[in-house]
């Protein structure tokens, strides 16, 4: 079995964990890495020695990458806030770096800072900051703005998964509050890369289609499932889905990417495109979908795995799930090693890891193949996948959310097929709106009904005895 990436990903992650626990001198570690690299190159022909050296090198590279990620440059906007004073009144120029969102009468987005006016001087600066603006000004991703407001340093939280830690993992160390709408001036449009602007435009268009065709509560669920836009979901529904352990369907994950890949392949097969061209188009569409949904960790993981699988078939090599998963992990961690401590990353990888490791073992143990009735076999397989996933993520859910949710295994059996139906209806609605508008009401009504059913099933399950246990109150 050839799984080199799995071993490298594990050693790389251990390096990151070690660097997060103790402070290590960058220079010395870098020197060790150089020595290991030279030795690995020298012992290229020695099988065992090379493997040990390369694993050591991956471990040290993990340490180096995290040490580097923890350094905040002097030009970062957070360094403009004096250490003895937690806030600073200033003017900042920068480009909107995330889709502006609206909640609790505030618009918020990430701004990539470029210039700052502080104490009668204008200086170049860098880094991302989270901007809050009172009200709802019309802002779009990629616009260059000048803002006047209060800059604050984010104070680290003691909680393992506090919001400040989440922001720090995204390399955001400061918050900028703009109190008046007229303290925002847009100076240029379309300052982001073209592909990102295309993705942002497409997202806005899809949001508009969903809002036009579906009633608000149901639309909020569909937007979450298709675009990963969770801000409009009623809190009560969200909490109820956390308790049944089915909240994973409200974020765009591997499940959604799988559905998109399936629909694309089916459609391209129907129009009889050659296999090679089909895979190229599907790959490009999946990358675009990944960008539309904000390239969160689960989507990025699923997109990389899907692309590896498709291209594996294309070059006639048997794709290996473990290697594909490890490649996705390395890809995300090399870009930002701090993601290892992100709850979305941990849940996403833990669930897939348990499905590809635990599920086959349980299946063999329970001898599912010996079941003669196909329906029973499929049902048992579904239960086992859900169970494996639950086992894999149970510890993390208990640790971060303080919940123990035995209902999850049963809930997923009903909720996942419903979520598949809703997602299919959602994508069909979008395609129909563009190509066959007369058909769109059928899909929108089906989607509304399926979401309604999902609410009912979920509220029934959450009320069952011993459905969930709140560990915080016990």
């Amino acid at each position, binding site marked *: 079995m*050839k799984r080199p990436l*799995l071993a490298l990903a594990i050693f790389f992650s251990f390096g990151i964990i070690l660097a997060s626990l103790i402070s290590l001198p960058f220079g010395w570690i*870098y020197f060790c890495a*150089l020595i290991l690299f030279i030795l690995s190159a020298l012992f290229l022909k020695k099988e065992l020695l090379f493997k040990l050296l390369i694993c050591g090198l991956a471990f040290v590279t993990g340490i180096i990458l995290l040490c580097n990620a923890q350094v905040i440059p*002097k030009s970062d906007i957070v360094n403009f806030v004096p250490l003895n004073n937690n806030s600073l009144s200033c003017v900042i120029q920068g480009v909107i770096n995330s889709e502006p969102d609206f909640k609790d009468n505030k618009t918020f987005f990430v701004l990539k800072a470029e210039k700052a006016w502080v104490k009668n001087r*204008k200086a170049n600066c860098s880094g991302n900051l989270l901007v809050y603006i009172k009200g709802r000004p019309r802002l779009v991703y990629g616009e260059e703005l000048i803002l006047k407001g209060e800059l604050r340093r984010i104070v680290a939280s003691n909680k393992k998964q506090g919001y400040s830690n989440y922001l720090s993992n995204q390399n955001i160390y400061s918050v900028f509050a703009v109190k008046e709408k007229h303290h925002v*001036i847009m*100076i*240029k449009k379309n300052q982001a890369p073209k592909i990102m602007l295309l993705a942002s435009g497409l997202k806005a268009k899809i949001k508009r289609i969903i809002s036009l065709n579906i009633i608000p509560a149901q639309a909020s669920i569909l937007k979450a499932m298709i675009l990963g836009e969770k801000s409009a979901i009623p809190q009560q529904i969200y909490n109820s889905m956390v308790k049944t352990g089915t909240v994973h369907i409200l974020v765009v994950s591997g499940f959604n990417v799988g559905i998109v890949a399936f629909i694309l392949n089916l459609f391209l097969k129907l129009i009889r495109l050659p296999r090679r061209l089909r895979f190229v188009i599907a790959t490009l569409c999946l990358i675009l979908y990944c960008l539309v949904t904000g390239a969160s960790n689960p989507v990025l993981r699923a997109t990389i795995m899907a692309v590896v699988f498709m291209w594996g078939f294309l070059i006639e090599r048997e794709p290996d799930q473990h290697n594909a998963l490890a490649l996705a992990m390395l890809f995300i961690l090399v870009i930002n090693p701090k993601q290892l401590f992100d709850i979305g990353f941990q849940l996403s990888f833990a669930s897939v890891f348990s499905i590809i490791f635990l599920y086959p073992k349980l299946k063999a143990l329970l001898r599912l193949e010996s079941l003669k009735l196909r329906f029973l076999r499929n049902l048992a397989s579904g239960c086992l996948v859900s169970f494996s996933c639950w086992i894999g993520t149970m510890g993390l859910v208990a640790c971060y959310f303080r919940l123990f949710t035995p209902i999850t295994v049963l809930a997923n059996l009903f909720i996942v097929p419903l979520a598949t139906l809703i997602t299919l209806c959602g994508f069909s609605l979008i395609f129909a709106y563009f190509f066959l508008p007369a058909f769109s009401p059928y899909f929108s009504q089906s989607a509304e009904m399926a979401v309604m059913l999902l609410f009912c099933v979920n509220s029934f399950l959450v009320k069952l005895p011993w459905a969930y246990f709140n560990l915080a109150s016990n």
Partner: protein
Amino acid sequence: MFSLTRQEKGVILFLLAMALAGSGISFLRKKYSRVETVIECGINTWKVDLNKADKEMLMGVPGIGEKIASRIIEYRSEKGAFKDMEELRSIKGVSAYRFEKIKESLSVK
């Protein structure tokens, strides 16, 4: 655990070398980065200059739409530069309410 061909070993070494080189350069750039002061100025320079701004920049001010931005440009080309912010009131569409709303984001130099 795993076996690798000579080419695969080469590729892995190359990728690790790139990661090491990249992080080394990035670390040095961060460590020795400086805050470059572009200009010494007053804080009000962030406002949009009514006499220099183009149409797009004027439209970036909350309360100024495409029509009013065009009228400001027309006014400037017909009557010359604005001497006073109060001159804005003579432009069609700039009501007392709108003037109060936009004046904080504009300056006349």
